[in-house]
Structure formats: structure tokens, C-alpha cells
């Protein structure tokens, strides 16, 4: 069985807020001094894959697929050290100048997956930790014409049957489908395991395949279907604090209510 986990490299979302500089003209977010990391939901997806592999380590192969203008081996190394078997990177200079929207990303991933050979299951995070669009998995399933299950908190494979527990706002839903399929994994499945020292050493020997877009049969990046109209930093409301000087709770409450009403808040 082969599982492909699509993983994205993003600026560390835990980085200081001041380090994310918005370039209004180019409509880009320029992270300054923030190390890249694996997108957290993609880590959850990898953990789901590794749990399937844990049950049958000899027969399950986990491949990592990542695209980007420069995919860092150091960042992806964590995925290999955690237990993935190989890394496939699609890097291309065209990624430097073109914006990849969800459709373009899914198209490139689909081509890369076809190029990578047979697969049984594709796992992706429920959304990326930078743009949070949450669409790539669904579009990818449309392109590959396979079922897609979203918001997974548990993934189990039995023969060619896939059972997925989904997190809903009012409870848990269990669905069943057939392989091959795509599952979009949510954080409820649990965090990616710690890469152990031994696997860390072995990870250095694992195969890394590097492609550009012509290697996967594309001549150019598919045009974006979403046009970004404006990107800007929202203005922070001034943090003026007004102290109510009345000395009883009743008086203070009455005055607060009047002020909120005057501001149109209530």
C-alpha cells in the first residue's frame, strides 16, 4: 500500500506578529527572520499515515510530496525522521513569479501524483497554516476523480475499504468509502510524533526526488482562478482604557452601559 502525504512548508505561524510584513503593492506577506516549518495540519496528516504504517510497517510506504519555490530539505527532514519513506519535491523558478492559488496547487499536485506512480491513499491537512483556504484536497479529488473525505480525526484502512471519523460541530460522523481516496486530516487526530534519534539517522539515507514542472508534464503553471484584489494589515484599534470612577458596582455598571450605548455597541 502506498500513501502519499502532501505537505506544505510555511513560515512558522507561532513566529512574532511583527515579523510578518505585508507588502501591499506586491500583495505578498514577507516573513522576516521566521524559520519555515511544516504546516501543522499537514503534520497531522503525516501522523495519520504513520499510524496506518505502524500496523503494517512492511507493506505500507509513505511518500511525502511537497511543492514550492524552494522546498527546504531541513524542514522536510522532520517528516522523513518521523517515519516517512521518501520525499518528492517539485520546485520551479516559475513559482517565484506566479501566485499559486488552490486550483493551481491542486493541478500541480495531481500531475506530480500521476508522475509518482501508483497510490492507494492521499492525505492532506484540512487547510494550510498560511492562507487557510482549505480547498486543495477537494479540488485534487475532482481532478483525480476519487472520493474525498474532509475533517478527519481518525483514518483506518481495511483491505480496500477506508473508514474515516469526521469531526462535526455537533458530534462525530463515521463514513466509509473505497480506495483510492483523499482524506483531509484535522488536528483532532493528534500531533506528529517526535522524530527519534535512530530514525533521524536513518532519515538521512532516505530517497529524495527532485522535479520541476516540466518533469511532471506541465509547461507552465496553471493560471490562477482566484484574483487577489487587496492585501493589507488591518488597523489595530487604539487601546485606550477608560476607568469608571464611580465607587459602587451599580453606578459603574450604569455608566458603562451608557458609554457602550453612546458608541453604538449596544
Amino acid at each position, binding site marked *: 500500500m502506498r500513501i502519499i502525504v502532501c505537505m506544505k512548508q510555511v513560515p512558522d505561524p507561532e513566529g*512574532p506578529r511583527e515579523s510578518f510584513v505585508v507588502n501591499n503593492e506586491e500583495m505578498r506577506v514577507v516573513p522576516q527572520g521566521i524559520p519555515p516549518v511544516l504546516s501543522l495540519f499537514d503534520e497531522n496528516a503525516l501522523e495519520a499515515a504513520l499510524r496506518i504504517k505502524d500496523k503494517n510497517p512492511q507493506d505500507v510506504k509513505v511518500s511525502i510530496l511537497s511543492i514550492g519555490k524552494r522546498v527546504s530539505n531541513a524542514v522536510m527532514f*522532520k517528516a522523513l525522521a518521523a517515519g516517512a519513506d521518501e520525499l518528492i519535491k517539485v520546485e520551479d523558478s516559475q513559482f517565484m513569479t506566479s501566485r499559486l492559488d488552490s486550483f493551481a496547487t491542486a493541478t500541480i499536485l495531481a500531475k506530480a501524483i500521476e508522475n509518482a506512480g501508483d497510490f492507494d491513499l492521499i492525505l492532506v491537512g484540512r487547510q494550510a497554516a498560511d492562507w487557510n483556504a482549505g480547498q486543495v484536497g477537494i479540488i485534487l479529488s475532482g481532478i483525480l476523480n476519487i472520493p474525498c473525505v474532509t475533517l478527519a480525526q481518525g483514518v483506518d484502512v481495511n483491505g480496500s475499504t477506508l473508514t474515516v471519523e469526521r469531526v462535526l460541530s455537533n458530534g462525530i460522523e463515521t463514513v466509509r468509502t473505497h480506495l483510492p481516496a483523499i482524506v483531509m486530516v484535522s488536528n483532532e487526530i493528534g500531533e506528529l510524533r517526535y522524530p527519534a534519534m535512530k530514525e533521524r539517522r536513518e532519515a538521512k539515507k532516505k530517497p529524495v526526488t527532485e522535479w520541476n514542472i516540466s518533469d511532471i508534464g506541465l509547461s507552465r503553471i496553471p493560471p490562477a482562478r482566484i484574483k487577489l484584489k487587496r492585501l493589507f494589515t488591518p488597523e489595530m484599534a487604539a487601546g485606550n482604557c477608560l476607568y469608571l470612577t464611580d465607587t459602587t458596582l451599580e453606578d459603574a455598571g450604569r455608566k458603562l452601559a451608557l458609554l457602550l450605548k453612546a458608541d453604538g455597541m449596544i
Partner: protein
Amino acid sequence: MKKDINQLFVYPKSWVSTETKEIAASVRQWANKEVIAKRIDYQEDYKKLFSEARKKLAFDIGCQGLMLPEDSGGFGFNRLTDAPLLISILKEISRADAGIGFVHALEYTVFSIFAIEPVMNPELCGKLAPLFCSKTLKTVSLILPGFGKKGIDDPLFEGRSVRARIQTADEKCMLSGRDLRPIGCGADAALFCVICSDANEQPCVALVPGDSAGITRHETIRKTGLDGCDNADIDFENVQLPKENVITRNRAAYELYAWLNLLLAGVSVGACMGILEIVSAWSGKRIIKGKNLLKDNPLCAAVLADVYEEIAIAWLLTHNLANSFANPGEWGNSSSPLIFSVSQMLGRRVQESAIRAINRTMELMASEGYATEGGVEKMWRDVKTIQSCLCGPGGEVPTKLDVAKCIFDSQTI
């Protein structure tokens, strides 16, 4: 903290390899998730949670048995060039909890004299590795020469009384000594490392499995800090050891001191990194004089700068020492008189800087620094305990005299 703590210390980047950074990042992830996020819970049930957190660190990541050769079942970080890696790991552990860092520092110190190349002893590694490559938590205790008692003439190691004796007959050795005070972990150690004197009153190092017959552990000692490490005085009563468990290599005891100073420096620097994050967050929220942020008051800002300065100096000294260990061709190996002296000097200086940084932090944070909830006072108690343990009889004096002997050829001190 608004800034990435990795970007705050200026040093030659070649000092820290990519592999070291990756492993340190992994340990940091553990620290954030398993310890820092649960600090309040720790106050309720430290022992239980501590044990759970330690297991993840020891087994999931692999910090127990890290320095044992791969052939013996360890993870093979047993080259001198791994010294910067070891302190990076200890820093990241201790950023969250210096007690856990201390336990690992003792383990790595003891392994340094028989597991690390070029002094690696495959036979000894093969014998002792099973203790540490299993899936149960193990600790190592270190007994150094120390105080003597008035009226008793002991064999001396650089002025310190060596109160454990080893006798050798045929292929067996016999270890004896009473009321010996380990640096730590005496109450539960799976392995004791004891600097003892032989028949010629020369120092040698005995490795004693914790289940050997003839070992008596006294009551657990209540102490200032390092709650994760239970210590107790030890009696050895004719404890029999195979000959290979006694390391008679010239200056092995000096190596132990050098490594201990380096690795405990890593622990205290790590604790200070945690302090820096805490005080940075706190000073960015605290309002004084009714309107100003504390960090924007010049007097307080100057204190904050002092805190950073002490930590940055300690950071640099520690990494500098680690790199001298990693490159023995440059200044000599850890047993050389110069490295022995310098490691003690820098080790002491790092502890001083660390305790000063924490003291100054507490000055600013006042009662919030003193309350258990703030997380600072635990670091303060832990680092002070390390500092005192690292001192010989009479505080800083023995280490200063060691330096004077090496640098100024002082003969009779």
C-alpha cells in the same frame, strides 16, 4: 517572547551544525508541549507528570542512551564533535525544566569517560548499555571528592578529600566508603560513578551498578531545588566490581570534572533562556507608575539589559567550551591541565552569570518572581542548587586554586 530566542545570541554559526539545530528543535517541541504548557499542573503533581515527560524525552526522542555507541544499542552520539550537540540538547531541556536537564547532564558526564571516542571502551559499553537502552527511566549518580573531616587525613585529589577507596585483588576490585554525598541521583541511580583512590592513593574512577551488593542508600535528601532528581548519601561496603569497571586511565578524573562543568553550564544556560522568555513577556505587559510599560522605564530597561548580558555571556562561554572539547587538536583534550582548569573556570563563571541573571529578573518581577506560579523561582532554586553542588569544599576556592596551579604554576597551594 516576540523575538526568536535562537536569533538573540551572536556567535560563529559554525559552532552549531544543522543536525544539532534539527535535534534541538525537536527537543524544544517536547519542552513546549510536555513541560512549559503544563507548568501549572506540575505544581500539583510534579513527580508523576515529570516521569511522563521524561519518558517521552528519553524514549520517544532518544535522550537516554544517546551517547552510547550504536553497536551497544545506543544512538551513537559519542564523538567529541558531539559536545555542542549535547549542550544544545541540555539547553533545550533545561529551558523547560533544569531538573530534567540535570539528570541527563549527569548521565552524559559519566558516559563521557567510557563511551566517547577516542576513549570508548567497547567492553564496558556493552556491559552497561542494556541498563540504559531499555524502556525504563534510569539515572546516573556521580560521587566526586569533596570535604574531609577534621582530624582525618584522606588521600587528596587536588586538595579535595577522596573518601572512597578501591582495593584490587586478582581480577576483582573492592570499593568502600561511607557517608558519601553524590552530586545528585543517589537515591535512585542505576549506575554510580565514583572517584576513588587506589592502593597508591592515586585517583581512579569506579563504575558501580546500582544493584550491586554492599550499597546502602541513606534517606532521600530534601534540598533547595532539582526536584526531579532524588539524592541520598551512599555507603559502599566492600562492593565487588569486575576489574574493567574501574578506569585507571591517567587523568580520567580530570576528564569527569571538565565534562561536568561543561554540561552543567548547558543546563544553567538553558534555564536562563527560559527566564529570558518569561521576563520578556512579563515586562511587556507590566504597567508601572499608572501608565508606562515596565520595559519602557529606563531603570528597569537597564536591568533587563543586564539580564540579557549575563545570559549572552554564559551562552557564549558554554558554546566556546563545547567547541574546544569538539576540537581537541586545537587546545588539548578534556584531560589536559589547561582544559581541566579552563572548564572549571568557565563552568563557575557560567553558573555565576546564570544565578545573577535570575536574581536580577526576580528583582524586577518582585513577588511574581518569588511565587511558584511565575515559574522563575523554580529556575532560581534549581540553578542555585547546581551552582552549590558544582562548588568544591570552600566554594569557588578549589576551582580558583586549580586555575592558579595551571596558569601560574603555583606549587604548594
